[in-house]
């Protein structure tokens, strides 16, 4: 049997250097999308190649990595990404949020407040919030350059009038550091306030659309909202996790087959390691 030989961190040094330069400019321009030459990797685009390239450009052997998908460390996507990264860097892996130095994620920000020594890498499928009003990427880039966001405000207001609420459940648009309109990736509205004045650094990678952007710590992140229709997180009063009892976390529902063969819906914390820790102490 032949063993596969990888270079450290899978991608070559030229590619890492380009990602690193883009990351430094992204941090210096909070919320601005910096183009980069996204590489082909042994996973399909759309499955986190943008986030993966950032993680591989960052990781030192002494880092401790956590990978989650939909809040779950054990989803197939998270397991595959984690295996690939560990095989090519030798970093230690963890499911415990507090133990990680770098966390790669799709869909969720962990429930525990992240610390200053932690970096969260988000996988981004759809990069530009202006796609709702301007499908042409070049014209959208010019609109960002001029902070020309009037049409986006109109679009948001019309969606309020039509639906009675802001319809955009995930990828909620925000203004970063009072300047750039930014997509919040497929994170739920529940997680959007965690980006505002955080202690940790947030890095966003879109492999298919070849863009990198960032939210530094202690940076203003303001959801688009209106005086008569303020931004709200998802919350159903009285609902709580069936496993740990938490009434103050982002919940998901999934079908479970009972002993009698009947299918029931069970609502639990989306952040599985947060939920497991709460069950362990209770």
């Amino acid at each position, binding site marked *: 049997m032949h*063993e596969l*030989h*990888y*270079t*450290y*961190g899978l991608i070559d*040094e*030229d590619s*890492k*250097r*380009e990602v*690193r*330069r*883009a*990351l*430094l*400019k*992204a*941090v*210096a*321009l*909070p919320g*601005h999308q*910096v*183009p980069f030459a996204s590489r082909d990797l042994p996973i399909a685009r759309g499955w986190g190649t943008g986030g993966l390239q950032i993680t591989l*450009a*960052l990781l*030192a*052997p002494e880092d401790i990595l956590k990978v989650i998908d939909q809040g779950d460390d054990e989803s197939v996507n998270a397991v595959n990404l984690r295996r690939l990264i*560990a*095989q*090519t*860097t*030798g970093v230690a892996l963890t499911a415990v949020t507090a133990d990680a130095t770098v966390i790669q994620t799709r869909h969720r920000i962990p429930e525990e407040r992240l610390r*200053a020594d932690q970096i969260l890498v988000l996988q981004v499928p759809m990069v530009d919030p202006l796609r709702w009003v301007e499908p042409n990427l070049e014209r959208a*880039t*010019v609109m*960002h*350059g*001029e902070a020309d966001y009037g049409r986006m405000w109109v679009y948001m207001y019309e969606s309020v009038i039509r639906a009675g609420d802001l319809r955009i459940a995930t990828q909620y648009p925000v203004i970063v*550091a009072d*300047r*750039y309109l930014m997509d919040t990736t497929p994170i739920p509205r529940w997680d959007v306030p965690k980006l505002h*004045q955080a202690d940790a*650094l947030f890095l966003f990678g879109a492999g298919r659309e070849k863009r990198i952007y960032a939210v*530094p*710590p*202690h*940076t*203003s992140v303001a959801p688009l909202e209106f005086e008569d229709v303020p931004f709200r997180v998802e919350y159903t009063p009285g609902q709580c996790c069936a496993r740990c009892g938490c009434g103050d976390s982002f919940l998901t529902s999934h079908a479970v087959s009972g002993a009698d063969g009947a299918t029931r819906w069970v609502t639990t914390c989306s952040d599985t390691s947060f939920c497991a820790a709460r069950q362990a102490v209770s």
Partner: protein
Amino acid sequence: MVPMSTPLETACRATFRTLLACFARPGTLGRLVAPPLAAPGPGWWTGIAFALLDQTQGVALAHAGRWRSADDPLVRWLTLRCHARHVSAPQAQLALLADPACAPLLDELPQGSLTYPEAGATAVVLVGTLACPAADATVWQLRGPGIAAHCDLALDAAAGAWLAPIQRSRAHYPRGIDVVLVDQDGRCAGLPRTTRITERGL
């Protein structure tokens, strides 16, 4: 078998992580490392050069108030070893400015465009010390993204010459220049273009 980084790759990664941390938290001091190879100029500069430069990048270096020419030994070494292109200041992605006499040259570096502000240069500015005893220090108060409220940065008095050109370099945000201050011992502080600086009397 898990692949290993070469010592040079390890130094490049450490340099990048230090720069990333310093840009994410302006005013917080980092410490740059020298890669294990003989090079003209300070070791930490060699680390920055290898971390950021390649054939796609233009570099310009200044000392004693003038840009170094193409036949300067440090320039020749960089273009040969990092494959960077030696360019005039308005074309540079990365610049090294070695003393306060170079402060006016910061105005010549590119600030990018409204559409592509990331084309604004990264300027590495050498100062005397970033660990200055309070009595002799120039103190800058910093505000902006990455800083909770505000923080102070103490520099040697001669570094005060950089204040006005750095302030000018960020007057038209998002266009601008991102600055890394480095001292003789490799201590560094990031001043990305979002950082607003005022001089504070002691």
